[in-house]
């Protein structure tokens, strides 16, 4: 019996429909497309499994269209929305309230606001060095060599994929080593107003740490600072990301090895 593709089960979600033989029918149709390798079929099925209408359409498509769409469809970096729609999501309130509890804990443990800023940045860094792998795995990003390209992808895809918010990249400097990331929305800050005892607190400092940690793992040493912060009276959240050094992995073997 052919193992059912979970996604197909969910998409069709009609209990009696025997997905396995439907899958075989789909498979037979695909074999008529020359040049579509086994992996190609596998990816095509998985891709189609997320779009019910595409499956219906597939059966009516003339062969050369199928070939163009299935084979030629490049598996390039996936858009933030596409990934966000496909990952498991939770209510933002749980996230916001948990973050609030974290900051509160730091404020009681460390008292000094500047210490809390540092600790939040460090916690963000610890998250960033782990989160980057999930970002790379799910976004199909193949190369992180060019800083400009990487910053764009992290902002556009990363923020959407993890926090469901859109972020734009702007004011690039001349040599493309410094830019701003502006968040249109920020799930960390719902129901938060800073008491004046917390003057100087960068409440969302975890975000700067996450970006710094993530970029460092793809050998880009950066400095990430807040330019604008709504909780401090500005009109938007703006982070500045400055590339300090691009650390190429050196060839691990000296000549005499």
């Amino acid at each position: 019996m052919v193992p059912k593709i979970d996604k197909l089960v969910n998409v069709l979600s009609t209990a009696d429909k025997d997905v396995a033989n439907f899958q075989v029918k789909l498979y037979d149709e695909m074999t008529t497309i020359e040049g579509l390798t086994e992996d190609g079929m596998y990816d095509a099925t998985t891709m189609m499994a997320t779009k019910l209408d595409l499956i219906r359409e597939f059966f009516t498509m003339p062969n050369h269209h199928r070939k163009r769409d299935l084979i030629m469809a490049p598996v390039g970096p996936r858009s933030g929305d596409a990934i966000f729609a496909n990952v498991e999501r939770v209510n933002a309130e749980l996230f916001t309230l948990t973050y609030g509890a974290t900051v509160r804990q730091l404020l009681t443990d460390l008292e000094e606001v500047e210490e809390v800023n540092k600790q939040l940045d460090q916690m963000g860094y610890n998250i960033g060095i782990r989160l980057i792998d999930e970002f790379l795995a799910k976004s199909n990003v193949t190369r992180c060599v060019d800083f400009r390209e990487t910053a764009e992808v992290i902002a556009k895809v990363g923020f959407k994929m993890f926090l469901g918010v859109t972020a734009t990249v702007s004011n690039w400097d001349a040599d493309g080593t410094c830019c701003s990331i502006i968040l249109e929305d920020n799930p960390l800050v719902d129901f938060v107003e800073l008491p004046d005892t917390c003057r100087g607190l960068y409440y969302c400092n975890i975000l700067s740490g996450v970006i710094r940690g993530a970029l460092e793992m793809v050998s880009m040493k950066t400095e990430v600072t807040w330019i604008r912060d709504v909780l401090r009276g500005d009109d938007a959240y703006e982070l500045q990301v400055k590339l300090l050094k691009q650390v190429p992995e050196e060839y691990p073997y000296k000549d005499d090895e």
Partner: protein
Amino acid sequence: MAAIYSLYIINKSGGLIFYKDYGSAGRMDTNDSLRVASLWHSMHAISQQLSPTTGCSGIELLEADTFDLHCFQSLTGTKFFVVCEPGTQHMESLLKVIYELYTDYVLKNPFYEMEMPIRCELFDINLSQAVQKDRVAMLGR
């Protein structure tokens, strides 16, 4: 019939952080698996060094007499490689699935320390399901 013989995961400095044998003759003892891992790490690096053009990311497939070795290296430098029967299909997608399981059940585990050997029960459970399912798919053909 073991389509997959063994799986290795190496951290970015070449240290072996995970090794699982799925039925090769004569299981490798720990120092051998450690040595294989660090040797592979250096071979992988050398293969990039010898590339006739830029942008080489190292060996992806090694074809030997009695096995194929498929290797996936993440952009963060972690290497996942699987030793399987020559000509086994879908190893690239299996490695991708394992990479995602690593990002879920290892990197999100607060008790896992980066670059250290992986001892996460949930990773083991989900990994054996993934490998089992993959084997079923292959047998099913």
